[in-house]
């Protein structure tokens, strides 16, 4: 039976040790298994204050690029 030919045993055992104990484990360690996200609690929204600081675009006719 060719499985009992012990001269090839180190040839098989060494890459097995590499593949199992090194490569597969490094792969598993480096693959981030992201867990499903837990439900997020949003903060209660404040009503919009018209005087609050926010960005407003000022339409100045002379500041706009010429539109054709």
């Amino acid at each position, binding site marked *: *039976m*060719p*499985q*009992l*030919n*012990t001269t*090839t*045993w180190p*040839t*098989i*055992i*060494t*890459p*097995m*040790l*590499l*593949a*199992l*104990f090194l*490569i*597969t*484990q490094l*792969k*598993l*360690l*480096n*693959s*981030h*298994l*992201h867990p499903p996200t837990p439900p997020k609690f949003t903060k209660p929204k404040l009503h919009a204050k018209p005087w609050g600081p926010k960005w407003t675009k000022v339409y100045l006719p002379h500041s706009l690029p010429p539109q054709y």
Partner: protein
Amino acid sequence: MNESLFTPFITPTVLGLPAAVLVILFPPLLIPTSKHFINNRLIIIQQWLIRLILKQMMTTHNAKGRTWSLMLTSLIIFIASTNLLGLLPYSFTPTTQLSMNLAMAIPLWASTVAMGLRFKAKITLTHLLPQGTPTPLIPMLIIIETVSLFIQPLALAVRLTANITAGHLLMYLIGSSALAMLAINLPLTLITLTILTLLTILETAIALIQAYVFTLLVSLYLHDNS
């Protein structure tokens, strides 16, 4: 036609160089790693499988047993991918080699026993005697239990080797007989049906992997948690 029945199980060499090294190192290439949050379908499916395996295997262990989760997950993935790739025609299955299975079984089993002896020496030793045995039977039973303990790694290795080898041999024999009967033109459907069912039954190579890891798990569990 092959020279003998066991030619597929010879360690493959190409011009004197060991191709077995490449064959053994190939299956991890099929499992891409990704650090992204959103991946493609292949990676999503594989990561889902890994998470499922991890959950199924590790819930029955306590904290100390769960330190083995990386080892056991990589073990089941390695054996599963290797066995499944061996189902392709003309491929070499490394798990048919007794050398590899022994090299997997003996260190893992020995480390579980060592762990049990190191942390729970008394409990591990008392496992050698089942409860409620009559006093005259005690010496004989201790010997029997010790023998059954030492036969665990051998059984693990030989079980995997023999099952995969026998499956491959059977597929080869039935396939070659079907080919031979083609000229005689016997009902072909019966033969192809046999091969098909045998292949699907042989996909219990996966069950074998389960068997491997689960028996390993059982021994770890017993030694660790009692």
